[in-house]
């Protein structure tokens, strides 16, 4: 393996920031020096004007394999991730079949091996994500699964969720919830409010999310098990989690780039590319999610990368599947639209999510001699325009087409290999 030196950057990690060069040998950081001259290697990567950070970690990626390979594969998703600066992504279990058994989990992990990202997998809480029977969580935990969710839908049965939390506590794994009361949300294709009323599109009220956040806070209190709330999208959801944290409960939560940048007004043209679940909300909700990220109530940014084949996004709005691409735009959206220092943005995208899913063994740690060389080099001033045709994902359903963003990943290093150099995937 070729040695690499990353020269001229500002190293940012959980311990702070400093000017330093980073030498990488045999998959690990071999040296971090601030004299700027003494290191040499087979390959020199320029990091002038850039931030050298631990690789980003996405705990919410739909990789569509097995079952929907026309929309994405683990390999194409991993390439999109690398271009977005991610060195670790967590596959969501709503594949076909669902990731609900050791066999399917092994298949996904196997597909991830040798790709341009460290692909880990979640597993579903219930068999087939059908909400009635627990998956073999202990067997899955033995395979390394640390994070369970029925994402795509929430566990509707409160008693089952209670039992799942109690059982998970015994295994030391975390349960995550896609909060959506299906009865209250039934038939809704966008946020219920002024825009849905005007457009004549059936809406789902914010309360469909909030009642499940409330319920699971109560269950976290009851069971003592940790609960992670996925893609929170409303002001009151953020407030509920803030109150639960103040109470000392073991809860964490994430927010997506689309929920801190876009509102339901985008649905006005009936383009299903803006259909997502939870739906795009109001300006007030966007402001609350941003405040939550700034205040630390929201622990991390998650992409909810959800590829869909083009023909499915040309269905009528109410019939099209929900979801948006996210891996290749998340960092740039955070840098462009969140009024936060870059250190904080990197925290939200790297070591905080890494800790939640137990990926901090290899990702998000301090950049010091001996640590695994999972890094990304970010040029915070590079301005670029999102072109769907230029994305590495197999799908094209980005809601940001034509949008100009500031901040871009220049290089990504995975286990000592430069998988992205000068914003180009190397394989």
């Amino acid at each position, binding site marked *: 393996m070729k040695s690499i030196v990353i020269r001229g950057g500002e190293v940012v990690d959980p311990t702070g920031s400093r000017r330093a060069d980073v030498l990488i040998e045999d998959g690990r950081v071999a040296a971090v020096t601030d004299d700027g001259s003494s290191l040499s290697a087979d390959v020199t990567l320029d990091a002038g004007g850039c931030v050298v950070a631990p690789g980003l970690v996405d705990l919410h990626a739909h990789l569509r394999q097995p079952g929907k390979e026309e929309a994405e594969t683990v390999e194409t998703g991993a390439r999109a991730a690398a271009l977005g600066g991610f060195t670790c992504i967590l596959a969501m279990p709503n594949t076909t079949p669902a990731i609900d058994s050791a066999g399917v989990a092994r298949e996904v992990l196997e597909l991830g091996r040798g790709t341009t990202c460290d692909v880990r997998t979640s597993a579903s809480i219930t068999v087939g994500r059908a909400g009635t029977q627990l998956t073999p969580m202990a067997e899955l935990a033995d395979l390394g699964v640390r994070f369970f969710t029925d994402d795509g839908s929430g566990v509707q049965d409160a008693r089952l969720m209670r039992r799942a939390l109690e059982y998970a506590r015994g295994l030391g794994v975390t349960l995550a919830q896609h909060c959506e009361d299906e009865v209250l949300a039934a038939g809704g294709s966008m946020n*219920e*409010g*002024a825009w*849905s*009323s*005007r*457009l*004549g*599109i*059936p*809406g789902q*009220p914010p309360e469909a999310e909030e009642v499940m956040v409330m319920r699971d806070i109560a269950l976290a209190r009851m069971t003592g098990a940790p609960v992670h709330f996925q893609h929170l999208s409303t002001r009151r959801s953020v407030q509920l989690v803030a109150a639960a944290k103040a109470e000392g409960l073991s809860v964490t939560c994430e927010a997506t780039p689309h929920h801190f940048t876009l509102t339901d007004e985008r649905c006005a*043209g*009936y*383009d299903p590319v803006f259909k997502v679940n939870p739906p795009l909300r109001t300006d007030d909700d966007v402001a609350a999610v941003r405040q939550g990220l700034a205040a630390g109530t929201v622990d991390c940014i998650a992409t909810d990368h959800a590829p869909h084949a083009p*023909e499915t996004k*040309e*269905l*009528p*709005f*109410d*019939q099209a599947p929900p979801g948006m691409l996210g891996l290749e735009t998340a960092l740039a959206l955070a840098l462009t639209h969140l009024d936060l220092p870059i250190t904080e943005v990197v925290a939200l995208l790297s070591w905080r999510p890494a800790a939640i899913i137990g990926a901090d063994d290899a990702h998000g740690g301090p950049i010091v001699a001996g640590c695994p060389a999972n890094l990304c080099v970010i040029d915070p001033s590079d301005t670029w325009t999102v072109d769907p045709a230029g994305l590495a994902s197999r799908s094209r359903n980005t809601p940001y087409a034509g949008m100009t963003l500031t901040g871009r990943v220049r290089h990504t290093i995975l286990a000592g290999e430069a998988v992205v150099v000068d914003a180009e995937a190397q394989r």
Partner: protein
Amino acid sequence: MSDHRHLLSIRDLSGGDIERLLTLTDSFVEVSRRRMPKVPALQGRTVTWLFYEDSTRTRLSFEQAAKRLSADTLSFSVSTSSVNKGESVRDTVETIEAMGVDAIVVRHRSSGVPHQIAQWVSGSVINAGDGWHEHPTQALLDCYTIREHLGGLDGRHIALVGDVNHSRVARSDVWAFTKLGATVTLVAPPTLLPPSTDGWPVRVSHDLDAVLPDVDAVYLLRMQRERMDEALLPSLREYTNRFGLTRRRVELMDDKAIVMHPGPMNRGVEIAADVADLPRSVVVDQVRNGVAVRMAVLFDLLGSGRDLDTEGTR
């Protein structure tokens, strides 16, 4: 509206656009009264229907309008077509357009489908009703009928009664009536109103009896039985008791106030059978005016530069 290629929604139009279409309708009403009610205005133009949802009167009305304009018509029956074999809307409209059509008249159960189709074709798209969203030609014929009976809409007060939330007729009428200067009151139980009426130029009431003395027209929306399954109402009986237009309620109205309905009527539910047949009920006029209004819309979109009576005979 001359710069519009499509008719997708009333909300896109200005009051002036609507007035112009109503004035154009006058000339087609005149054509309709002729012994030979047909003009060559759209000779050589082809109009096709793409109805993904059952419709009798709207489809027949468009067909009659196109024929009276001498347009060629292509009939497309969704139930016997490749749509039933899973063909997408996009593939279907691109296939139809390849055969050479100038306008596609679309009805679909999903809101926004005409907007999507308009992105994919080069011809004109006319919305004949999309989901809960809009039904623009219904609103135009409603305006025309009100103008015919009340002399105009400016300063008039119109009550839209019933299932507003699930009604594309209401979502077009609200904008058409108010753009022409009328006051609109939505009258319904809260469960049948849109979740939000922010930005809607309307008043809202839950008490029909209190509103009726003050209106120039009462417009009854069709009450669909499936709403009973969604916990929106306890029963049709209770709905009729509070919101049905009965003879007793008609007595509350001004002598000259008219009764409207987009059809098909549920007699005995939103409208009592004997009320439907009163002279003040203008339901049949609405249907009759529908043909002339749709002639005006087709001519406006497809007849650019053509003379109403002589084109095609040269």
